[in-house]
């Protein structure tokens, strides 16, 4: 089995995040600035297992999620009870594509757990992991933040 460096993995994650969002008719651009979220933020989190061990969490302005859901569902009004479903499905697609890309790039076979949803920003556990943070801004100046936490030794093999 091959391996990927942390930076190569982050590059894959970043590309998938932007590609999937673009396929849902919205665009995200990277920003080096610190993210200024609105008051309404959701987060979705999962853990990868198998040849790739990491926790991946996405915090995102709720208004961005609503707009993406409107486009995917082709509905002007997205009932609030569907927002959690949409957020998990959006993240599920992102994680699935990350797993597929890891396999294509280095034959790394991995699965991930069913994403969990929260109506708060993801809180980082700063103790036991190495961490990479990717910040994004939408065309409507909404914020999104992907946090990748991997075991300290190695993240994929």
């Amino acid at each position: 089995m091959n391996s990927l460096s942390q930076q190569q993995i982050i590059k894959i994650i970043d590309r998938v995040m932007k590609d999937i969002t673009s396929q849902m008719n919205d665009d995200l651009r990277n920003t080096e600035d610190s993210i200024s979220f609105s008051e309404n933020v959701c987060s979705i989190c999962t853990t990868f297992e198998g040849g790739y061990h990491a926790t991946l969490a996405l915090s995102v302005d709720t208004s961005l999620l609503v707009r993406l859901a409107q486009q995917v569902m082709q509905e002007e009004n997205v009932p609030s009870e569907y927002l959690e479903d949409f957020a998990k499905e959006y993240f599920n697609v992102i994680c699935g594509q990350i797993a597929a890309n890891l396999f294509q790039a280095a034959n790394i076979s991995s699965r991930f757990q069913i994403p969990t949803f929260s109506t708060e920003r993801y809180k980082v556990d700063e103790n036991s992991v190495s961490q990479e943070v990717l910040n994004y801004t939408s065309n409507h100046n909404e914020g999104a933040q992907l946090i990748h936490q991997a075991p300290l030794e190695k993240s994929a093999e």
Partner: protein
Amino acid sequence: MSKKLMVVDDSRIVQIQLQKILAGTDYEIVACCQSGEDALSMYDQVLPDLVTMDILMPGMDGLETARMILKKHPQARILMVSSLAYDDTINEATSIGAKGFVYKPFDKDQLLKSLEQAFVES
């Protein structure tokens, strides 16, 4: 006559997407299940012409559900619809007897082409 589809996906969003995409086509969604366990009992009730099957679901996953449906109904047509689209998963789905694989996120053309292909092949 329209073809009866059963959708197995824990996401209501995907169920809504499929209903919108398939409206006005030759396919009719006759049942939606949010788990593999529900799908096993529902299959016997509706005997669909085709099942669209997610993989990652709480409880029994889609590959195991497909395996169990095909064990009982070897003629069943199952189309995997998942974001877990890489060789390992596709090979496993094929070896179980799935008729095809649709990658999430999907669009109308991709879905209809895969559905058509699943019926041609069987």
